[in-house]
């Protein structure tokens, strides 16, 4: 048996709690800042005790934005843009990957492996290595400042396709035989058998891809110039570019908290699927 000494257990808990406190410290400071007034924050070093302007700051952020004297995009609009983009990317990636994997696993046809490798290639070409030409193509196709432009160019997914392929390979072949004997075609089989079996895998993947989509940075930064299409992550970055004196720090920190809260809530509330998706997705 493994020894479990009470005194040592206490030490381990202590170390874990202190580490978590250190790791959470930046968030704590930002949450506190989002409850203060601008003079409180500028009166450096700011206090580490929460203030009483929590509600006021979040309402200002949601309705007006964090640039002093107006001119910023209100956060409700930014959250909406982020939500549309994240949902579009997650749903889009799952939809096109699940049907590609279905084609590759359940059919035999000329150039099957060629297509498989072509999908694989996307893994080796992250946006960061083809920034300019991809931007030029999006511009040519008129995708700048549009939801389509934010979503479609990023929804090809090798990892999601592999993820579904691995799962489809575990579906017993007898099921396919039985379906064929019963006269069910490939579309019927997909809708009635494969989709219901994939439910938990889809949920797991959705959590990972939603966060991936929500946190997109470089691509939206390139293709949106119209603040109406800014996502919340991009807007926060733009606020940093405004001269120091014009940023309402508490409101900006409220915006930052809201930008994190959505994906963090998804991770924590959908923990079971998240951990599973993360570990399986990367295999």
């Amino acid at each position, binding site marked *: 048996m493994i020894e479990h000494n009470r005194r040592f257990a206490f030490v381990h808990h202590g170390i874990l709690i202190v580490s978590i406190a250190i790791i959470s410290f930046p968030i704590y400071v*930002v949450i506190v800042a989002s409850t203060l007034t601008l003079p409180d924050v500028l009166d450096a070093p700011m206090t580490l005790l929460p203030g009483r302007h929590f509600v006021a700051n979040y309402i200002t952020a949601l309705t007006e934005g964090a640039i002093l004297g107006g001119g910023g995009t209100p956060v409700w609009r930014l959250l909406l843009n982020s939500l549309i983009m994240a949902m579009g990317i997650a749903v889009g990636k799952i939809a096109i990957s699940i049907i590609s994997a279905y084609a590759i696993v359940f059919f035999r046809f000329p150039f099957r492996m060629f297509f498989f490798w072509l*999908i694989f*290639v996307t893994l080796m070409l992250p946006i960061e*290595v083809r920034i300019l030409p991809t931007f030029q193509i999006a511009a040519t196709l008129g995708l700048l400042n549009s939801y389509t432009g934010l979503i479609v160019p990023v929804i090809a997914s090798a990892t999601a396709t592999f993820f579904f392929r691995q799962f489809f390979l575990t579906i017993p072949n007898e099921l396919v035989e039985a379906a064929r004997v019963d006269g069910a075609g490939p579309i019927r089989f997909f809708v009635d058998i494969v989709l219901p079996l994939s439910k938990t895998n889809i949920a797991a993947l959705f959590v990972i891809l939603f966060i991936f989509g929500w946190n997109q940075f470089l691509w939206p930064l390139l293709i949106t110039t119209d603040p109406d299409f800014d996502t919340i992550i991009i807007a926060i970055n733009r606020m940093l570019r405004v001269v120091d004196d014009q940023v309402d720090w508490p409101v900006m920190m409220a915006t930052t908290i809201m930008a994190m809260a959505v994906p963090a809530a998804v991770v924590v509330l959908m923990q079971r699927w998240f951990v599973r998706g993360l570990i399986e997705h990367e295999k």
Partner: protein
Amino acid sequence: MDERVYFKNKVLPYLLLAPQIAITLVFFVWPAAQALFQSTLIEDPFGLSREFVGLENFSDVLSDPRYAKSVVTTAIFSVSVAGLALTTALFLAAKADRVLSGRLIYRTLLMWPYAVAPAVAGVLFLFIFSPRVGVLSFALEAVGVDWNYVLNGRQAMMLVIGASAWKQISYNFLFFVAGMQAMPRSLIEAAAIDGAGPTRRFWTIIFPLLTPVTFFLLVINVIFAFFETFGVIEAITQGGPAGATNILVYKVFSDGFVGLDLGGSAAQSVILMAIVITLTVLQFRYVEKKVSY
């Protein structure tokens, strides 16, 4: 050999693949080919004339001292981020593995930084280390550190490393915990019966068994440090001061978009592609081994 039954349909599989393949060709393969093509051309900034120059862009890039500096910066940055994020996560996972109660709570509390976008992680660190309003800047000043990352390159580097590693700890932690849970308990119990203490058990059994996970994470962390930290750099330093945090990915972006040096940027893209391809191959070789203990 292949006994599986398949659906027979001449058109359907192509239709199913069409959306994925179309996006891959238009937004991945074509731009990559363009980058390869542009990397052999010199174009004037107005796009009026261009000239084929072979490998001249590459030799220009590779002989540019700023590029060499960026390579060194990237190396220091990636090694530090990966090292810091991996050791911290391994330490925490080992501690979480030793406690009997509360494991799930600790996991939850360590999980959420995964959800924070790199750009937002940058904003958090920028705010607490800002020379003007930052809480920790004042703490550092109080203990005698002359803190100003806006002017001091070393401090800027430490800050972007800290912010990037901070974000990556959760990911590593979850994989280490999963790896430890997958280990046969009997092995660890046998060692305990033989009188090996917790520290000895960690270094002689748990750590060696974690090697495949660690290698896998090492590759993932290097990929993260190379490419996904763009947001951290953009938020905190924009590559400055004086290029001190100008990692390769940031340089491609700033040379191409801000400097409008199309050929040079394309040549840098092609070099980065070679790096990603190498890393991806490494990743897949270790993935095979990761699952079998």
